[in-house]
C-alpha cells in the first residue's frame, strides 16, 4: 500500500505557496513539492510539523492508498 496525502489540497485552503509552507514547517520548497507528488514520504517529525501548520491531524493529511475509500464504503453500509 502506498502513502497518499492531501498536502496540496490543504495548502490551497490556507492560500500558501510551497515555499511558504516549507518555511513554516522548516523544510525546503523542493521537499514540499516531493511530498505533494508522492515521490517522498516525510519523516514523522516533518509530518507532525506540516500537520501543525495546516491545523489538522497527521492522519487527515497522510493516509494509505485505499484507506479513505474503505472508510467511505463503511459509512455507506
Amino acid at each position, binding site marked *: 500500500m502506498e502513502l497518499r496525502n492531501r498536502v496540496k489540497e490543504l495548502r490551497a485552503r490556507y492560500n500558501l505557496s510551497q515555499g511558504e509552507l516549507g518555511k513554516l514547517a522548516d*523544510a525546503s520548497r523542493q521537499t514540499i513539492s516531493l*511530498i505533494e507528488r508522492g515521490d517522498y514520504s516525510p519523516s514523522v517529525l516533518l509530518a507532525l510539523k506540516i500537520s501543525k501548520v495546516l491545523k489538522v491531524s497527521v492522519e487527515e493529511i497522510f493516509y494509505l492508498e485505499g484507506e479513505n475509500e474503505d472508510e467511505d464504503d463503511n459509512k455507506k453500509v
Partner: protein
Amino acid sequence: MKMRMIIKKYRNFIIVMMISMIIGGILGGFSDKISKMDLSFGEDMSKFLFKALFALSLIITIYLIVTIIYIKSNYMKVDLDNIPKVLNRKVSNAILLCTIQAIIGLTWDAVVINKSFDEGPLYLILVPTIFIIIAASLLTTSMKYFNYLYPNRKMNLFENGAEKKYFDKLDDGEKWVTYTCSYTTFNKMQMVYTVGLVISMLLSMFINISIEVPILIGVIWIIQNLIFSFESRKYEEV
C-alpha cells in the same frame, strides 16, 4: 509455460547477448578488411584534441558568462521565499558547467603535457590552465549568487569538508533526492564502464588504443564497487 516465463524474465539479457553475437560475428567476418583500415588521426591526434578541447571550452565559457550576466541582473530582484524556477535552474546549471569545464581543463592539461614532454612546445599548457582559472573564478561567482539565494545553506568551496557540511544543511527531502541521485549514478556508471570497455575493445580493431585504457576503466570500476561495499558495511555493524 515455464519456458515462456524464463524468456520473459531474462528478455533484456537475451536481447543484449544476441545483439552482441551479431555484432561480434560481423566484425569477425570482416576482420581482414577492418585490419587494413586506418581511422587513426596519426600524428595529428594531439592537434585535433587540442583544437576540439579549445572549441568546447570556449563554447562552455561563453555560455557560462552569458548565464552569469543573466543571474547577476536578476538575483537581487527575486523574493527569496519563491525563487523563480528559471533562476534556480540557471544557478545550478552554472555550477555544474563550471565543474565540467574545470574537469575538461584538467584533461586538456594532461593531453598537452603528455605530448609536449616528448615533442612540441610546453607553453601550450598555459591555454588549458587559463581556462581552468576562468572556470574556478566563474564557479566562485556562481557560488556567491547561490549563497545569496539560499542563505540557510551557504557553501564555502575552499573550506575543509565543504561537501559534507553542505549535505548536513539539507533537509530530509533534499537528502532523499541526493541519495536517489547518487544510487542512480552508481548503477548507471556500471553500464558506462561496460560500454566503455566494449568500445575500447572495438576501437582497438581500428586504431591503436593504448593498453592502459581498458586497464584504467577496469581499475576505476573495481575501486567504485569497493568504495560502495566498504561504505555500506559500516552501516551493517550492530
